[in-house]
């Protein structure tokens, strides 16, 4: 651990990316959590996921771009990330995790950085490469994902002060918790929709009675 580190807030994500194993310890020690930086990364996550669908070269693009709808991209990036944070927090507070919601949010966002970089490289390269050279694209895509996953494990381990097996178990059950949260959210949404339709029909009924 390096105690002499004195980095500005925006440099921390890059530092942990380059130091996957000790970076988060330093971050924790120096309290490098910064919500603004984390939100910028989450926003970049959203932008990159849209760009990946829209700007990837024709030879490597399998998106159905006939109809463009921003909602699926938003929910598969930002909402998914927020669900991860909430799911992880609600699980790990019960199991002696030391991380607060803010800490989890920051370290998880910082862990996304390699994935974002690899996606940007893929998007640019896909416009210059032929189909036979697609191996590079697959390589960068998997490199980014693996790197991000390693960072995420390291982040979870440090922020909650868990052992490695406990970290992995916690991450697995976080995914389960996310599934439960999404299920409840969809349930709630449909119920509220029905309530809304009911209220709206009463409103229209009343409006007809009074207007004519």
């Amino acid at each position, binding site marked *: 651990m390096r105690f002499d580190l004195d980095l500005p807030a925006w440099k921390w994500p890059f530092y942990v990316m380059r130091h996957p194993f000790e970076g988060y310890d330093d971050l924790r020690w120096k309290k490098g959590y910064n919500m603004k930086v984390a939100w910028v990364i989450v926003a970049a996550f959203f932008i990159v996921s849209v760009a990946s669908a829209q700007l990837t070269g*024709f*030879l490597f693009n399998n998106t*159905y771009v*006939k109809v463009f709808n921003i909602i699926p991209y938003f929910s598969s990036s930002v909402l998914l990330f927020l669900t991860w944070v909430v799911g992880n927090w609600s699980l790990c507070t019960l199991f002696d995790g030391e991380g607060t919601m803010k800490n989890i949010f920051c370290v998880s966002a910082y862990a996304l950085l390699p994935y974002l970089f690899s996606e940007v490289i893929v998007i640019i390269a896909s416009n*210059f490469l*032929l*189909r036979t050279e697609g191996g590079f694209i697959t390589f960068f895509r998997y490199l980014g994902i693996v790197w991000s996953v390693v960072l995420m494990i390291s982040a979870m381990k440090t922020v909650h002060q868990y052992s490695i097996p406990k970290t992995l178990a916690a991450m697995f059950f976080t995914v389960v918790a996310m599934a439960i949260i999404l299920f409840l959210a969809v349930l709630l949404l449909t119920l509220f929709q029905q309530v809304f339709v009911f209220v709206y029909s009463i409103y229209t009924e009343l409006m007809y009675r009074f207007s*004519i």
Partner: protein
Amino acid sequence: MPFMKKLAAAFLTAAIAASALVVTASADEPYTGYNYDWWGDPIPSQNGFVVDKVIDGSDLGLDKLDYSSYSSTLQAQMQSLAEPSDIFVYQKTGEFYIVDSKNNRLIVTDSTFSPEKTRVITELHYGSEFPESQSVVKNVNFKTPRGVYVRANNDGIKFIFVADYDNNRVVMFNEDDEILMEYTRPSGDVYDANVTYNPNKVIVDSAFNVYVIVPSITQGAVQFSADGTFNGYYGANRVEATAEVIAQQFWKLIYTREQIIAMRRSVAIEISNIDIDNDGFIYTVTENKSANTDVLKKLNPAGTNIFVNLGYDEVTFGDFASRYYKGKNYASAITDVDIDEQGNIYLLDFATGRVFQYTDECDLLFIFGTKGPQQTQGTQKGTFMSVSALETYKGKVYVVDSRKNSITVFKQTEFGGIVQNAISLFNEGLYDEAKGPWEEVLRRDANYWLAYIGLGNAYLNQNDYSTAMNYFYRTSRAGYNRAFKSYRIEFIRANFNWILIVILVIVALLIAWSIVKKKVLNKGGNK
């Protein structure tokens, strides 16, 4: 009241719109041509084929014949076709052979379908070469014939082969109705004793090997050599890797021998129809609503599907997705295949009554024909009830309907002719000459994706890579890849100096930056 005014206006607009719809719709075919775009969505297209005429029994003069020897119920039935199940055209002379299954007869006519040209074959006779004593079946009449094929030998003598379903034979006879050979149930161990032998379709290759489609055989077509000996099976379908099949493979690892024998065996789906092209390649189709493997196969003489190497076995033949409409699920069930002179492939879909025309490279050209609504019983021209066979002759497509008891003749439209002309030029390698027809196609139907590929190839041939890329964009990945490869090389060659300069400047800047940074840091350290 403003509300009532609005309502009246809305009704009026709707009425005008509806009347406009009726006026345009009445002049059209009962079907709208469509094609599939890059994403596999159906998009409207112009019709490539329209109905020319519909032929029934009275056109052939069947109602004028003498049926006094038959019972009264049969007499009425024999006035027209009854469940015709196959049609064959002998391309050299233009003779049409129609199998009239329920009436147990074969009708020979020509493309005019006039009564004078029509000859009805109901009774054969055993000749001296193949006396009745040698026959197993010993029947001079047909019993529910289902398929017909005609091939001439080198001397030009024609032999007619009929798949005689309920007589359990394929019968070969000459134009004097003299039976020369019967291909009956193979004896021996290879042919399963528990399986029936009801020939449904038959084709003959140039060496006079006979291929018989038997519905109960899943190992492929039953193949006989010219002298009637059983050669084995030909062109079996693959077993589709469904979840059930994979699970069975897993259990086979664990089970004992007895348990494996008792297991439900997963077998391939039987071939439903067969055709042979001018080059001797055999095409088979499989009629199954759930399976997508081996719907259409092109087999070489060894029985190997050559579409696999070309990647065409990945093509979805027929409609892309099954559609749920008015309580019924429609998925393509390809029941017949035909290859025309140009090598185009025609598939007949039993489920929807549609004909799908493909090029020899399995690119979808046109879709035509439709299943009629239940109320009209397919009486409208171009609609069907239960299609059974199709055949092509001189650019026209003949579709047999076994419940309408008629033959519908489709002729090519002007648009279809332009497309066909462009493809012919394209296949001969005359890309530049094909440009004009393809541009004409796009003027008439801007959604016709094959035209974009054709024009892309034309521009690629002229080394105009960026234009070619524009045409290939979202129509052909392979074409785009080829054009882009050349474009990229050309781009780098043309701009090599600039690219080098930019790279050098970036490297120089990076070096300069690192030097400056070091100096600044050193100064900071000195403090």
